[in-house]
């Protein structure tokens, strides 16, 4: 119940394409769903996050779609660029306070070809 399942494991798109990365969860107590971007040799960096009271959130070229009934959420990258090539992680956490912890998906390695 603590797992977050992420797919695909890897993804190759052409520049300008719209890669979509999907995540699914079981625990309905999760109430915060962030996406992180990680470049080689760097730590994950927060990209965008959503709470379950909204179905979509956009920040620049990045959009999260959230389906509460299906317990799924996805990341869309509009007009993808070679600089977007990185590993993307979805995550989930529940509750407030110090016991809050992020449970990460298994990651998606995205390659955007020029």
């Amino acid at each position, binding site marked *: 119940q603590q797992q977050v399942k992420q797919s695909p494991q890897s993804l190759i798109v052409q520049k300008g394409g719209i890669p979509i990365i999907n995540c699914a969860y079981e625990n309905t107590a999760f109430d915060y769903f962030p996406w992180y971007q990680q470049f080689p*040799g*760097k*730590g994950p960096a927060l990209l965008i996050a959503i709470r379950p009271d909204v179905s979509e959130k956009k920040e620049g070229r990045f959009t999260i779609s959230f389906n509460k009934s299906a317990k799924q959420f996805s990341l869309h990258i509009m007009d993808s660029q070679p600089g977007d090539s990185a*590993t993307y*992680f979805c995550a989930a956490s529940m509750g407030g306070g*110090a016991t809050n*912890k*992020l449970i990460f998906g*298994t*990651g998606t390695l995205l390659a955007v070809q020029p």
Partner: protein
Amino acid sequence: DTAVSQTPKYLVTQMGNDKSIKCEQNLGHDTMYWYKQDSKKFLKIMFSYNNKELIINETVPNRFSPKSPDKAHLNLHINSLELGDSAVYFCASSLIRGEGANYGYTFGSGTRLTVV
């Protein structure tokens, strides 16, 4: 620069040795974490501290001992290193309470530990 900084960035050591990784954040966050990223890039939480108090301990072997001298620092000491400890260890911080609390984590750049 405001950041989470970890030292060292690389650590190569022999089995059985004891080593420490240090982490400092100047973001004014009140909670710090250690995460382990394995060879398949899977990120798993090990520990969290809130204002110097241990909050989360995720069934990590006793050989791993975190210490938080103050809320801006969180160190990780590992005794009797084993081959399976080879991984990238990330420190992270977040602001859980008070004005601006948002649960977003800021990660350091990681420490690549190789046990030979």
